[in-house]
Structure formats: structure tokens, C-alpha cells
């Protein structure tokens, strides 16, 4: 009995760190096309997923994806449900108080979408209904810039927000440019258009990790550099957008 216990303890001691190094659990939302979404067969696909797989290949570890609703994605990381978030998360000061970020893996600006031909301009948004996903920089931007002058509606997922834009419940959608671009090019987005100037909020998208997990951050940063240099990154970029999003 005692022998077994010792053997078990020994094998655990050996296996423990080895496992931890080989597998990185990655939290993502799976509802944010084209960056991360779940296809008809239930598989995670998208830019974030391709980048994550490329980074893991570069780091010689296995990626294991965990899907998590957006507004619980940081609490999930803190609760150790996964080790990193690769889900198009903006690097913001508020988030930095709770988590650390790697270097950026792409950049983003906020775009404004309206019904084609609607007489809405960025200068006269007063009294209009603006929509965005809850807990995003778009939602934050609306509150900061327009505050009480506009009616704000926040959604659990970006997909639901687009459904309401189609239904006419909101006049203006504020959304990450890449996501808006993808939607306008889909069937659903046909009757809609970008307007005004994109808000450049200096938005960089990074990988969130728990505070102090420097080893993982360094590995990710090195891997981001490596896939940028090797051309793997631009290949993935070209698969989704005809312009450079880094």
C-alpha cells in the first residue's frame, strides 16, 4: 500500500509539471465572427482560433479551447478555467488591473454602422439608439463619448446586437471594424453601411493571462514575433481580410 502511494506520488510529481507545460487551455467566446465562432459542425473557427493554433504550434504545446460567454470571460480566467484568453480582447487599463496582457496580435478601430441612406451622422447622434455588445470597448466608448445623450442598448453577444440592428430596434451599431466589415459583407448586412470616421481609440488586441504569469506571456510574445516573421501571420490575415490588421 505504502509502496503504491509513493509510486503514485512520484509519478504525479513527474507528470504534473510536464502536463502543465504541454497543454495550454485557451478561453474564447465562440460568438464573434469572423474572429471566433462555432461552425455548423460545432467546431471553433476564426481568426483568433487560427492565430492561437499557430502560436501553440510555434510554442510546441497543444492548445485546448474552452468556450465562455463574453461577460464572464475574465472571471473565468481568474478562476483558472483556462490559462489565456484569445478572443479579440482589447488591452485596456481597466482590464490591466485584473489581468496581464501579451503584446498585441492585431489592432482595431471602432466602426459605426447605419441603415443604408439613413440620415444619421456622428455629429447628430443625440436621441438615437446606439447598440453594442456588453463589456466591450465599443460599449465603453459609447458611454464615454455620448453618455446620457443617447439611448444605449447592450447585448450578450454581437450576433444578437446585429439581429436588433436588422429589426430596426437600434439606429446605430458601434462595433469592432473587422467584425463590422465581415457582417456588412454577409447576406444579413446587405441593407447597411459604414458611416462617418472610425473611432481610433488606440485599440490593441492582446492575449490576456493571469497576473504574474510571466513565463506564459514571454512564450506568447516570442511566438507572436516568430509567426509575424515567418509569414504564417500574413497568411492567416489574408484568409479573413484583404487589408493588414496588425
Amino acid at each position, binding site marked *: 500500500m505504502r509502496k503504491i502511494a509513493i509510486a503514485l506520488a512520484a509519478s504525479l510529481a513527474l507528470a504534473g509539471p510536464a502536463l502543465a507545460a504541454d497543454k495550454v487551455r485557451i478561453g474564447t467566446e465562440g460568438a464573434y465572427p469572423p474572429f471566433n465562432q462555432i461552425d455548423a459542425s460545432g467546431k471553433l473557427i476564426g481568426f483568433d482560433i487560427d492565430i492561437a493554433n499557430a502560436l501553440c504550434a510555434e510554442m510546441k504545446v497543444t492548445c485546448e479551447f474552452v468556450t465562455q460567454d463574453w*461577460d464572464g470571460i475574465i*472571471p473565468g480566467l*481568474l478562476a483558472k478555467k483556462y490559462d489565456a484568453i484569445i478572443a479579440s480582447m482589447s488591452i485596456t487599463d*481597466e482590464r490591466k488591473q485584473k489581468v496581464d496582457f501579451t503584446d498585441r496580435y492585431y489592432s482595431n478601430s471602432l466602426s459605426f454602422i447605419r441603415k443604408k441612406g439613413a440620415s444619421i451622422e456622428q455629429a447628430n447622434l443625440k436621441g438615437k439608439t446606439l447598440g453594442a455588445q*456588453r*463589456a466591450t470597448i465599443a460599449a465603453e466608448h459609447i458611454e464615454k463619448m455620448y453618455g446620457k445623450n443617447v439611448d444605449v442598448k447592450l447585448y450578450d453577444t454581437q450576433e444578437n446586437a446585429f*439581429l*436588433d440592428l*436588422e429589426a430596426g430596434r437600434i439606429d446605430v451599431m458601434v462595433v469592432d471594424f473587422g467584425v463590422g466589415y465581415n457582417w456588412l459583407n454577409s447576406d444579413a448586412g446587405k441593407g447597411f453601411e459604414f458611416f462617418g470616421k472610425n473611432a481610433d481609440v488606440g485599440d490593441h488586441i492582446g492575449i490576456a493571462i493571469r497576473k504574474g504569469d510571466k513565463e506564459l506571456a514571454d512564450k506568447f510574445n516570442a511566438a507572436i514575433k516568430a509567426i509575424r516573421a515567418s509569414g504564417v501571420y500574413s497568411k492567416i490575415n489574408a484568409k479573413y481580410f484583404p487589408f493588414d490588421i496588425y
Partner: protein
Amino acid sequence: MSFDLGLVIEYFPRLLSGAGLTVELIAISSLVGICIAVPVGLMRVSASPTLRNLSLAYVFFFRGTPLLIQIFLVYYGLSQFEAVRNSVLWPFLRQPYWCAIVAFALNTGAYTAEILRGAMQAVPRGEIEAARAFGMSTALLFRRVILPRAVRIGWPAYGNEVIFMIKGSALASTITLLDLTGMARTIIAKTYAPVEIFLAAGLIYLAIVFVLTRAFRRIEARLNRYLLHESA
């Protein structure tokens, strides 16, 4: 993991305003739900097979599908149809507030109708026969004997239903409403403090349910006070 009480105090007023919306949603949908439940409950015990089957279909659908699906059908589903968007109902259905009330009322209406049906069928036959012996018409029999008795019999079960609805109302947050849960989630999006905020929100729900169960018990005692007199 430290617990930040200051955060709870800072955001408590906003949680309370969310709780106000929760109570409002429950109050209005319960009232509308009762208005649906009485006719549907009567249809359920009607002699006409058409009325019985119609009411059964309604009850079967709303008890057999998740409330979340019902809310999504009303909010995101109806708005997909051009005809609905051009109809006179759109100014109402455009607003998540009314969509939530429609979904909650239809849902609770179905459950309440079933409570009422069961209660009506539990009214002792002897009382009905006695009323008949007095020569009461069916309408009078329902008004004077069956319905008042059924309300007393079904009251505790109805109290349960309202409590279920309070908890179900958290789903209003999925259609952009800032009810207690919606407010909590929005605050958490800013503070990343789910433990503190959800705990505070949970306590507010508990307080609402506590007050409500007390009120229901008071009313129950009042409804049945004639029984106390008899036994005393």
C-alpha cells in the same frame, strides 16, 4: 480573492433600481397572466372539446418549452417578420420591456391556468351538488361556489408560481433590459467583481421573495379565516 465591500456599497443604488424594474415586470406580467389564466382555466374544464383542446395546446406549449426560448421567440423571432415590423403592434414589440411582459405573461398564464384547473376540479362534489340543489345556474355556480373555492385551494400553489417567475425574470437581462440581473451583469462588465455583485444581487432577490412569501401567507390566512372560525 479578497471581498470588496466598498464595491457593493458603491453600486447598491444601481442594483436597487434594477430590482425596481424586476418588481415592475413581475407585477404587470402577473396581472396580465391572471387575466389569461381565468378564461383558459375555464376552457380547460369546459364541456366543449374545441375549447378544451385549444386551451390544452396553449398550456402544453408554454409549459413544455423553456422560458428563455419563449423570450427569444417574442423578442428576436417576431422582429424577423416584415409584417410584424409594419404592424400597429411594432411600437410595443420594438421595446424589450413589452416583449418581456408578453413572454412572462403568456408563460405564467399557462401555469396559473393549470393551477386553477386543478383547484376547480378539487372543489368537493358535495358543495357543487348542494349549489345545484338550490337551483343555481352554471354561471352562478362558478361565480359563487367553484371559483371562490378554487382560489382558496390553489392559492399556495400560485404563491409558488410567482416565486418561480421572479427567478425566471432574470432572463429579461438577455434582451437588453437592465433588471436586477441585467444591472448586475453590466456592473460586473466594468468591475470584474462577479462574487461581490452577484452576491449582492442574490440577497436582493432573497429579500423580494421573503416579502412576497409573507404577503402570500397573510392573504392565505385571510382567505381561509372562515375555516378557523369553524374549528375554534
